[in-house]
């Protein structure tokens, strides 16, 4: 057929390659219309089509006895007993936040919350995982303040508690911050809603906000490098008040007889929601864009289809259910407009009044999206950094241990997040049992049951950078460890894969290896992947971000009253369970004190990891363990200091055995990092029993000190008042 000129400029605008364009022409047997081309661009973007990541995501374990819904819907769902399910997902809003941090982060929260209530679930907890460049650079401070403001502004207004998260700073995130938002909801099994269109002739109803020109091409924008240079008007503006009304109205609408599907409008707006609904149901959908309520005159079909105006939802309803559906939305003063119908021919057909703008089989947009399996190569520079000897760094003198501890506690990557979490409402919904900063994960109760959920996000990107397979394993293992430290059993995970360009062999290598590592750990720890999101092309200038496969996890406490935090009670004995020997490789100590990112990350034995977590969970369940905290960034001494600050108590430590086993390198013993190690506080009379349990499970255990007084005293290294530790720890983020 004749090929009319589609310029490179046209293709760049829709982010398709020439070859992909040719593929569209071949699929259709003709040239696409402009609206069709725009829709292919959006649906075949990495953000919607996962064209680089889809083959790799197949490595993830996605099933398990508790999994009710794995990847493929708006969010995953796991059984938590009592006929209830936890529904959860994490999603990125990195590129919008790099351009307009407040609205970028706010709409990130809005988007993930919609993903949860689209499933029929009541959102009960928000988390966020953030990465920025160093705060002494004014641009990074601006991004940080804006993002934190946007998260609080949106979540607080919705009335969903923001209970957990993680923040890390590294110069590799300058200019490309990461904003990953996670939401957890609760639903009765039988009320889980699908986004699959069913029933030929059923009505397609658009509810919520009017459609404007904001956010056009947001999905493609999320899949390009240097977002700041390319687009500005693509960042949407959030309206949390409207989202609150939409949330309540949609949850009420679940009870309307005849509602068969719900799908929120996120990336690629109406385009992706209609295509997804139709494609999943194996049916077609026909809509008329003239029926779409708009914010301004003169919008074209192209603009309506690609707008990413927020706070909108698509509902598929039987005709006889429409009056009751309308009643619900009237009550909330929201409009509900019938814009089309479900058809039997499998085509997405978009009309603009009488004119047919789009007529394409739905599966062309989804199943026929090209996928790329590339060949990854590890960067020479990273191999050299990993293999670098760390013996050359001057050993730490005993006199320097306490000054170094104070410096480590004030490191931006370790210090208190109080100034941030204070701006997030974390007590609303009256479920919060373990608050932010009280424990390794937050715990929320489930009203009407004796149980509760532990939730946490995390990822140590330096581990992933220096060894992506091992680092991917660590990302899963550490979050599971955090969950276990509250007493909860890890159930399942969601992830947000933040990486650089997959088109560069070094970037693809990181993505592929990290996914394989995460998959291995998820399988070993029985935490299947039930949902996730991919954010590639996180680069600024020539530099990619540190590879950051953020993991969000949900764990279950059958009896939430047994949940514990990290505050070590007076008089208890501190034990180190798990790996006694740490390494300086990839550590915060090397980065903070020696300005070096190098060495092998800590080794990880998944069998030991499992056992350590089990021993701690059982110790908590039987009332033997009163506080637990994993040692992560900053190592053993930082972990102990955090437990003492949390409880306002001092301690006397004897770490000589660990020093000996660390070749008498105090830096390794005190601040080296290792996986599979947890500090627990136990009553003196129960120490032997906990030691026995650890021995029975092949978990190394060492007595390291006693909680007493108001200073931290370390044998051979001097002492420091805990209030000084607190002051250092609280100073780190500045203002």
């Amino acid at each position: 057929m004749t090929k009319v000129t589609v310029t490179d400029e046209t293709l760049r605008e829709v982010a398709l390659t020439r070859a992909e364009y040719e593929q569209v022409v071949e699929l259709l047997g003709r040239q696409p219309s402009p609206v069709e081309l725009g829709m292919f661009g959006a649906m075949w973007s990495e953000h919607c089509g996962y064209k680089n990541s889809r083959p790799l995501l197949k490595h993830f374990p996605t099933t398990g006895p508790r999994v009710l819904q794995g990847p493929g819907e708006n969010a995953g769902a796991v059984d938590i007993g009592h006929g209830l399910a936890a529904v959860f997902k994490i999603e990125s809003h990195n590129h919008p936040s790099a351009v307009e941090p407040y609205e970028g982060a706010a709409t990130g929260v809005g988007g993930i919350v919609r993903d949860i209530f689209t499933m029929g679930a009541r959102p009960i907890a928000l988390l966020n995982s953030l990465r920025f460049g160093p705060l002494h650079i004014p641009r990074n401070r601006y991004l940080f303040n804006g993002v934190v403001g946007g998260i609080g502004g949106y979540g607080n207004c919705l009335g969903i508690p923001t209970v957990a998260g993680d923040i890390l700073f590294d110069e590799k995130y300058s200019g490309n911050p990461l904003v990953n938002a996670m939401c957890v909801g609760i639903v009765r099994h039988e009320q889980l809603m699908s986004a699959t269109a069913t029933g030929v002739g059923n009505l397609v109803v658009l509810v919520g906000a009017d459609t404007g020109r904001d956010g056009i091409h947001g999905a493609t924008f999320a899949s390009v490098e240097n977002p700041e240079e390319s687009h500005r008007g693509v960042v949407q503006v959030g309206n949390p008040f409207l989202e609150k009304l939409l949330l309540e109205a949609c949850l009420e609408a679940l009870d309307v007889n005849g509602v068969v599907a719900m799908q929120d409008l996120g990336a690629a707006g109406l385009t992706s929601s209609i295509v997804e609904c139709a494609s999943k149901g194996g049916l077609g959908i026909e809509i008329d864009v003239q029926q779409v309520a708009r914010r301004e005159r003169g919008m074209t079909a192209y603009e309506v289809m690609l707008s990413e105006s927020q706070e909108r939802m698509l509902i598929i309803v039987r005709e006889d259910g429409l009056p009751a559906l309308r009643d619900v939305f009237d009550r909330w003063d929201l409009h509900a407009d019938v814009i089309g119908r479900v058809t039997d021919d499998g085509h997405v057909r978009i009309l603009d009044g009488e004119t047919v703008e789009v007529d394409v089989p739905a599966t062309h947009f989804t199943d026929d999206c090209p996928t790329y399996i590339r060949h990854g190569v590890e960067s020479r520079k990273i191999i050299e950094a990993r293999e670098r000897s760390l013996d050359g760094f001057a050993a730490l003198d005993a006199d320097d241990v306490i000054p170094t501890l104070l410096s480590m506690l004030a490191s931006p990557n370790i210090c208190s997040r109080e100034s941030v979490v204070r701006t997030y409402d974390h007590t609303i919904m009256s479920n919060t049992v373990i608050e932010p900063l009280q424990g390794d994960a937050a715990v929320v109760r489930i009203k009407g049951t004796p149980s509760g959920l532990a939730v946490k996000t995390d990822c140590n990107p330096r581990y992933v950078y220096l060894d992506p397979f091992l680092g991917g394993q660590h990302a899963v293992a550490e979050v599971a460890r955090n969950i276990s430290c509250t007493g909860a059993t890890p159930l399942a995970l969601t992830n947000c894969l933040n990486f650089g360009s997959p088109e560069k062999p070094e970037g693809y290598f990181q993505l592929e290896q990290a996914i394989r590592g995460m998959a291995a750990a998820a399988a070993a720890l029985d935490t299947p992947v039930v949902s996730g999101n991919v954010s590639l092309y996180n680069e600024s200038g020539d530099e990619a971000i540190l590879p950051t496969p953020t993991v969000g996890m949900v764990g279950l406490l059958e009896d939430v009253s047994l949940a514990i935090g990290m505050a070590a009670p007076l008089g208890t004995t501190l034990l180190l369970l798990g790996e006694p020997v740490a390494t300086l490789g990839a550590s915060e100590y090397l980065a903070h004190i020696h300005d070096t990112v190098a060495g092998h990350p800590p080794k990880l034995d998944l069998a030991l990891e499992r056992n350590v977590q089990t021993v701690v969970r059982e110790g908590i369940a039987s009332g033997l363990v009163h506080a637990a905290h994993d040692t992560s960034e900053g190592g053993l001494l930082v972990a102990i200091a955090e437990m003492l600050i949390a409880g306002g108590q001092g301690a006397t430590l004897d770490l000589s055995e660990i020093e000996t086993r660390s070749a008498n390198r105090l830096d390794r013993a005190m601040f080296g990092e290792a996986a599979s190690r947890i500090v627990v506080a136990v009553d003196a009379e129960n120490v032997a029993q906990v030691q026995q349990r650890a021995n029975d499970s092949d978990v190394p255990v060492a007595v390291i000190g006693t909680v007493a007084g108001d200073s931290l005293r370390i044998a051979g290294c001097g002492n420091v008042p805990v209030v000084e530790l607190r002051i250092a720890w609280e100073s780190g983020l500045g203002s």
Partner: protein
Amino acid sequence: MKFGVVVFPGSNGDHDALKAVELGLQEEVVPIWHKDTSVAGCDALLIPGGFSYGDYLRAGAIARFSPIVDAITSFANDGGPVLGICNGFQVLTEAGLLPGALLKNAGLSFSSTWVHVRTETDRTPFTVGIDPGTVLRLPIAHGQGRYFIAPDDLATLEANDQIVFRYTDSKGHEDDAHNPNGSVAHIAGICNQRGNVVALMPHPERAYDALIGGDEGLQILRAVVHAGLSAVSA
């Protein structure tokens, strides 16, 4: 005793208020929709927290025009007990049922934490039976909680025993360090001259169970149950 919890568009503390009464007090409670025009059958009203109408103008400024506000006003004028919490406080000042105004926090940012408040008077239905001087630990979560009133009016407030709660430390001592939002005279809660309309920025309805951090808010909600019963019997 039957409580009513008024729900405006954007209210988000309604769930907690309903649950605090249902689970904490084990009393009857019903939601009241903002488009309703009657509060008949309710013995006490709770105006919950949230962001009514998004608080895009001034907090509470639009909600006060809701149809239900006339009914709340009549109920209050008849001496019925009304408790405004957080955004509910803001709505009651905007509606003219309480004096003063709530400004942006002195620190200019939203603040979610636990605070201590000292009970200043036991003459209201929500503090009767709580000895003056009693310190309660309650959560706050607000961006516009800085109570302001002109100096002359503050003197009137003091003279009329209309200051119900003040921010203090855990021992009941007032100082600026324990005032989370810069409120004038460390005021956390006030009442009208008659004493039946009370409002505070902290959230007693989120402190009804030790499992979720504390149960001292129940004392405020329970007081009205006792007050209500004695009013009926009087």
